[in-house]
């Protein structure tokens, strides 16, 4: 499967990954509309961490043995056997936050649109390349094939 890798050495901390992630997961999929007209604004599933001069963008790593899947109380979090993607099913999520407790990357967030469920990177279904990678100006985010 393909995974996103984050190279802190090339990251400038511009935050465009978060901006595009928010837009992609908004209703309109349009940056201006998502930022200006959608309340509450959708959450970014990628987190830009900064500790100058370092910066780094983090999102779900779609682990080989995902602790979130093991810990999930409702069965909402599961690993798609074919694609290897760790998928979160909103409809099944009970919002218990157990996955947040065990994710080593802190990559799962409470969805402010609906505090009853979590949100995480879904690798932008339907797109060839996730929007955070496609719009990273310095190629700090790379989408590449890994052996599973």
């Amino acid at each position, binding site marked *: 499967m393909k995974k996103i890798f984050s190279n802190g050495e090339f990251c400038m901390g511009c935050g465009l990954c978060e901006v595009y992630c928010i837009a992609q997961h908004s209703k309109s999929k349009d940056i201006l509309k998502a930022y200006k007209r959608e309340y509450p604004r959708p959450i970014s599933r990628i987190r830009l*961490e*900064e500790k100058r001069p370092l910066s*780094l963008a983090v999102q779900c790593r779609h682990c080989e043995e995902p602790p979130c899947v*093991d810990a999930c109380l409702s069965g909402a979090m599961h690993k798609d056997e074919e694609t290897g993607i760790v998928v979160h099913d909103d409809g099944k999520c*009970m919002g*218990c936050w157990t996955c947040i*407790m065990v994710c*080593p990357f*802190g990559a799962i967030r409470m969805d402010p649109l609906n505090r009853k469920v979590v949100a995480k990177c879904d690798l932008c279904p339907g797109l060839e390349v996730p929007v955070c990678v496609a719009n990273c100006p310095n190629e700090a985010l790379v989408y590449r094939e890994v052996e599973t």
Partner: protein
Amino acid sequence: MVEYVIIGGSAGGVGAVEAIREVDPAGAITVISEEPFPQYSRPMIADFLSGETPFEKMTYRDGKFWERNGVHALLGRKAVGLDLTKRQVRLDDGDEVAFEKLLIATGGRPFIPGIEGTEKKGVFTFTTLSDAEALAEMTNGVEKAIVIGGGLIGVGATEALVKREVEVTMVELKDKVLSLILDAAASDIVEKVIKKAGVTVVTGQTVKRIVGRRDDDASVGGAVLTNGEEAPCDVVIVAIGVIPRTELVAGTEIKVNRGILVDRFMRTNVPDVYACGDVAEAYDFIWGENRPLPLWPVAHLGGRVAGYNMVGVKKEYPGGTAMSALKYLDLPIISVGLTNPDGGTYETMIKYAPEKDVYKKIVLKDDLIVGMILVNEIEKAGIVFHLMKNRINVEGFGHELLSDDFGLITLPENLRRMLLGD
């Protein structure tokens, strides 16, 4: 073809089936479950009782999990005896099921203390779907409930009843609610939120006696507290905790302490017999010893590890610990490990913003994290959990664990690179 038998069809049983099937698609798996339903998520019974979650949403896997995995599921059947010499499980109807590899995942049962009157109609426990169904039926139009116990089960039941517009009094023997997993400051925040929802919280008391109705002594009419006060109510929920359900192995050579003792491979002292979940007493990575941990994710993980070892893939159980994520009354809380240490060898860091009800606490011992409580700001919990679980020394960056911009970037470079795999 190996014959696997699993007693218990909840988190542990499901985890074991998944692990066995990853390696052995052909072996015969029999699951014996007392509950007549498809497998479901027990932690969701509070949402079921509150009316927010229909049963269809509670299936832990899909509704056809047993069928899809070629499991011979004996649902609504009870294992009543074990013959470890003949390698058979005896069922309630006298049938015998032969095993080559056995997993005991019978779970826990609610602890009911010696309170007078618990046999009356209207007294419930709250751990299974049947409990929730019975309570849902009973609390239609019912006005007052008393919940005995301010722990995880008690608070969950209380919230569900409040949502059903039942007037609830929660009675907790300790001075604080959730005292097993929170410290006083975090508990106070929870108590404030519970009270705001309209619940009467009584601490330092318990129920001494459940009394009948004036017109019907066989039905609950009220409860007498230890201080002698009598509170009227229509239902009583006993939510004091669960104890390992070990009666099946009583009188056998399987070693039991509080729960069935298992090693790091989930093996009991009897060859080919494994145990996991609430019935077991397995390794706790913070306590450094075995102890019962009646928690869903711990049961599932234990089941998986047992499954791998049953099928011949040697897999070590990393251990569990006290770990709870709470969502009660929309107050997100995460509590892991030793959160309330006594003695002077622990170092405690606290960050408290009362105006936002944000409370964060980390407990350290010799530069290892041994406990954490996070209230309202919980999203970085997993990074701390990872450091705890892997016993990573935090010397040099431990002081940053509670800072607002704490993240992977706070970790030393080699640690971060190892974690991110680049």
